[in-house]
């Protein structure tokens, strides 16, 4: 990937630093990330912004052992699709969990963590990961 200018990351800080999503006022479904149009109803209505609790369950998962650029030092690491308690799904890493322990249905909660560093420029990227819930 190219080395992007700072605004590429800066404009996403609000979304990366909190779990902001959307709720469709017609069908009541929740979505992550934000959307302008509900992909189910497909109606021209004003979508509501919501903040997710960060609690959910592992819907499916994998353990990445052959990582892309920037993730070498973290491998092997778990990436999962989490079904949030509001109903929306989200993709993220599951940390503080042994790769042998991860299971579909496992309760997890969101944590704020470093994701990786960007190339030589040294921008440190943060975002949401998940850890097993107590």
């Amino acid at each position, binding site marked *: 990937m190219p080395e992007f200018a700072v605004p590429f990351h800066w404009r996403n800080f609000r*979304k990366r630093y909190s779990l902001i999503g959307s709720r469709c006022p017609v069908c009541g479904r929740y979505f992550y990330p934000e959307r302008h149009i509900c992909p189910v109803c497909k109606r021209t209505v004003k979508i509501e912004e919501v903040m997710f609790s960060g609690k959910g369950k592992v819907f499916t*998962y994998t353990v990445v052992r052959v*990582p*892309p650029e920037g993730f070498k030092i*973290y491998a092997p690491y778990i*990436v999962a699709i989490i079904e949030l308690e509001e109903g929306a799904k989200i993709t*993220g*890493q599951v940390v503080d969990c042994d790769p042998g322990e991860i299971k*579909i249905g496992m309760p997890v909660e969101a944590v704020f963590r470093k*994701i990786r560093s960007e190339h030589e420029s040294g921008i440190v990227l943060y975002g949401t990961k998940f850890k097993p819930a107590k």
Partner: protein
Amino acid sequence: MMDFSKLKPARDVAIVGIGSTEFGEHWNKSLRELAGEAGSKALHDAKIDPEEIQLLVGGNMSGGMFVGQEHGAGLFADYLGINPKPSMRTEAACASGSVAARVGFMAVASGMYDVVAVGGAEKMTDVSGETATSVLAGAMDQENEAFHGLTFPGVYAFLANRHMHEYGTTREQIAMIPVKNHKNGSLNPIAHFKNKITVADVLGSALVSDPLRLLDCSPISDGAASIIMVPAEKAKDYSDNPIYIRASAQASDSLTVHDRRDITTLDATVWAAKEAYQRSGLTPKDINFAEVHDCFSINELIAYEDLGFAKKGEGGKLIESGDVEIGGRIPINTSGGLKAKGHPVGATGIAQLYELVEQLRGEAGKRQVDNARYGLAHNVGGSGATVVVHILSNER
């Protein structure tokens, strides 16, 4: 869901020429040489001169990232002697080639052009494996998937774990798919891999993204393929054995996998297949053989179900039955598939049509399917945001 059976193209379209490079690691050939070789072979096969071509449509996923070359269609049109006729590039990740074929089909079917060359090419081995993984990850949601370190094997591992969880599909069943495809690839002179493997080899290969292992994954390959299309009513002027495009269908789904209705299904495959069956008036039972998108083993198993060759959840039983072997009820990936034939992403969709044409002409040698009449090609872009399905026949 709309009814496609009432939408008739203005004209039927036939394929009168095919060409392909061998797939593999071509350290001595550039992107332009690969495209030139495939295009030139297709022109020879159709016995036409480049000046007869009226339009060039070329599929290429990421010439810019793999070899620093954008605007490939402009380069290839010049290289193939097609200038000053128009050229264009299509991009839909690993379905770039099929989308090119579909644009070419629509150009001929509409009456806009009579003689169209379509092709696909990708040169992937000039960058490191790590860089290639990152370039391919560009076809997923950058901010919401790739940002978190997800890879393409990871996406399909999501599907595999969930399919095993919901339907009891076993790791051994999934491993039988690359075994079959390597067996078929061993019979294909242009395949990247011609070695046979066993279920034990698959299950003993290195984990890439649990539960998927190295031998579940299609390779990083170089290659190009091309086909020439003309109106069906003029096909006999060019070829003694023209092959007819009975349906060209395409559907879209969310790029982000976590937004899908059902993670064990590619809805875009279901929709594109439904369109293809409606347009052709055929059903899954009518299809004699198929090339399906086995970028990862699990995706072929899911395609059995989504294309209607097996009931939902029973893809594992179909591979166990032997019905999908050459000589079986519905041979799948007689070419060796993406796994053994190779997966130069932009070329793959055209390469699938190339195999269909060889089979329907009766020129597939040791891979030949008996009484091949209807062949289906299924090409997936990325993790399933784009799916293209074509049905070809040797009968108009």
